[in-house]
């Protein structure tokens, strides 16, 4: 067959099929009644919401399957509002679908490209305008304008300078000093080694100097976790071992990855786990990272006891705590 390949032809829009409500006046009346019922239900729901708002006390709770203990005030106020809106919507949709014209209409679409003549005109105008401004020839103007515009963007940046102080050495320092007592959080009580049993964990903060207040930004760097193991369980080098006291080891509680509180301690495996991104630190090996995205161990705080037998810091942290930043040197 030498016939040209022929695609299937477009048979055109299918013939319109009338709805029942178009041909049967009874069906149309029925649809009208249904729409009206939906709108009335909506109005009733609004009254339910108003009734709940005024008359249902907000301290009544009752049990609902799946949802558990539910507040009656909140539930009926919400249901009233929800159904008042839903029934309006359903009524309108039902109205549009059954009673409004459903004949499909065809509208023409035109290509966006203008006729060639108009287009050439337009292109020529743009070229002329650009030429009239002289940007092509007068490159001095172009360059200095670029300079001015570029430089002018600096003003808003400079204006934002006072958003905050410069970081300075702030990220490196914590409140821990030589001899700072470890106090419980909460409670602010100093701790003796015998307060902690083997296997126990405690969150501590540095004791406040008289007249000082503890801010959240202090806690964000000062929070320390105390863990007591049997001394034989440590696998530490002599220096790090000397930073522990009687099986008690102290780490910064602020994750070395992104600064979350490393609060999950697995007593069996002696692992510390950060719930944010699951960096896992081995307590027996100076909080070495054994899993997860953190690249550094948790900084260890050297501790000992003072003359009165309370746990104190031997020295400040020897490295910045918390997440990494550009100026951090290791």
């Amino acid at each position: 067959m030498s016939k040209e390949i022929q695609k299937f032809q477009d048979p055109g829009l299918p013939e319109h099929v009338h709805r029942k409500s178009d041909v049967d006046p009874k069906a149309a009346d029925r649809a009208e009644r249904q729409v009206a019922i939906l709108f009335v239900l909506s109005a009733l729901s609004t009254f339910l919401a108003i009734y709940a708002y005024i008359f249902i006390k907000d301290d009544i709770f009752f049990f609902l399957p799946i949802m558990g203990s539910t507040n009656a005030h909140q539930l009926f106020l919400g249901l009233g509002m929800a159904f008042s809106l839903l029934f309006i919507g359903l009524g309108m949709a039902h109205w549009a679908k059954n009673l409004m014209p459903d004949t499909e209409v065809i509208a023409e679409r035109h290509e966006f490209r203008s006729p060639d003549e108009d287009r050439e005109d337009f292109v020529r105008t743009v070229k002329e305008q650009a030429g009239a401004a002289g940007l092509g020839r007068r490159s001095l103007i172009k360059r200095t304008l670029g300079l001015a515009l570029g430089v002018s963007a600096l003003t808003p940046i400079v204006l934002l300078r006072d958003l905050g102080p410069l970081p300075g050495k702030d990220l490196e320092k914590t409140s821990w000093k030589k001899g700072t007592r470890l106090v419980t959080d909460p409670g602010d009580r100093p701790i003796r080694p015998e307060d902690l049993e083997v296997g126990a964990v405690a969150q501590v903060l540095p004791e406040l100097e008289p007249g000082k207040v503890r801010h959240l930004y202090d806690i964000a760097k000062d929070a320390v976790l105390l863990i007591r193991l049997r001394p034989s369980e440590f696998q530490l080098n002599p220096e790090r071992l000397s930073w522990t006291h009687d099986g008690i080891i102290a780490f910064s509680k602020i994750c070395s990855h992104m600064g979350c509180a490393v609060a999950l301690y697995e007593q069996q495996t002696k692992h510390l786990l950060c719930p944010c991104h699951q960096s896992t630190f081995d307590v027996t090996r100076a909080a070495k990272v054994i899993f997860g995205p953190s690249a550094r161990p948790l900084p260890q705080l050297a501790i000992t006891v003072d003359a009165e037998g309370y746990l104190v810091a031997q020295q400040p942290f020897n490295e910045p705590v918390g997440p990494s930043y550009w100026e951090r040197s290791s």
Partner: protein
Amino acid sequence: MKKVERIGGNVASYVDDRTGAAKWLRKNLTKVFPDHWSFMLGEIVLYSFIILLLSGTFLTFWFDPSQREVVYEGSYEPLQDIKMSAAYASTLHISFDVRGGLLMRQIHHWAALLFMAGMIAHLMRVFFTGAFRKPREANWLIGVGLVTLGIVEGFLGYSLPDDLLSGTGIRIAEAIIQALPVVGSYLAFFTFGGAFPGEAFIPRIYTVHVLLLPGAFLALITIHLMLVWYQKHTQYPGPGRTEKNVVGYPLMPVYMAKAGGFFFIVFGVTALLGAVASINPIWLYGPYNPGQISAGSQPDFYMGWLDGLVRMAPPIESYIFGYTISWNILIPGLIIPGILFTLMALYPFIESWMTGDKEEHHLLDRPRNNPNRTAIGAMSLSFILVVLINGGNDIIATNFHLTINQIMWFTRIGVIVIPPLVFVITKRICLSLQRADREKVLHGRETGRLVMLPHGEFVEIHEELTPAQKFTLTQHQQPKALLLPATDANGVLNPQGIKGKIRARFSQAHVEQVPAPTESEAEALEGGHH
């Protein structure tokens, strides 16, 4: 003349007397919109945005965006006499002491989730049907901008109550800022007005959340809709539908009623969720304290994939000349999302470059008829799904009795292996579906009716498709691959160089299709049968 018609006529004359817009208004009131359920996805986004504006305004009447320390004395007993920020205390006040406050908070949060979910669904519809092609590239770009801003807006919104969960999220955002090379610690101090957490962040993001970003949304959504209006909506292929027409219902009255009704339905559904489904019960988390955390800390779903990426990152940092570069934060937190969103934004231009297609398109593709694009979309989705699974690894581990390590390693390997596999499988499925279409057009639909012929043979009756069905299944374009010119006019070998080669290769992959059956083929078969 009916009364309503007379009033309508008067209103129309009143408007025209003062604007002279009769012609323009008439044209636009009868503007035709094609009908399809998938065109409602974008509507859901628009309506949830309006719900967000309304419910959000209600919340601002009581919310106090301040990190000033106060002692809670409201009616929620477990937190009484506890120190917290004014932001957290006022959120508790809204939840327990303002009637309808908790309902509005929950509607606001559910509407935000719906807003994001709707945008993603709408984006997928536009991608898989090729609605982003010329002349709608600009609208695609605006859409990508809206998704990006939506993620930021949602994050800022759930950060405002300053509870333990959201404060942890802010801490992570701070760590990402701090990890930026050179300027990181400076930017962090400027953003937070000093050391983290400070007292400046919540008031600042409040202005951004309730003024700056909603304003940007309003502007972008307006342009988005004006472009849809001006360029006219795309339509699915079918009998009577061409590149040159729009088949559907007029704006007045059908679409006004349908769209208006749909707004109330969306609002009603979010209100229903707000009434019965508890979300973000901040009173259970407690006020933020950087030394505390709760297990199972999870962001909202549209942030979950980012968290999953951060979780699976290998622990790499470089220390160069005394400075630190945190690859474990920069790569998953900024570089990969940056690449993904750039590729997504540029996709219309990439596809047009690969295929050499510079035509206008108003008829949508059935996803199977563009196997390469569909496979690219499915591949991207599978990537996001794998990292999202890792973002919930702790929750999955406790619910399915797995270890976090198993899930982490599954997703670490999966994120590299699964997307290419999904690409290949999706492409094969599309081609198989095309083959099935071809089969249907040429041999009819399998009816499942078996008939025994007089000589004992069983045959299944195949029912011939209607001309409309045949047309719908065969109308799609079957583009040809771009050919790589071997030599140019002067005899130079491969004049387009490596770029041309890559392009030709892409184009070849893109045109891989099962040939659509034609009338001629059907006739030839007919002749053979009888």
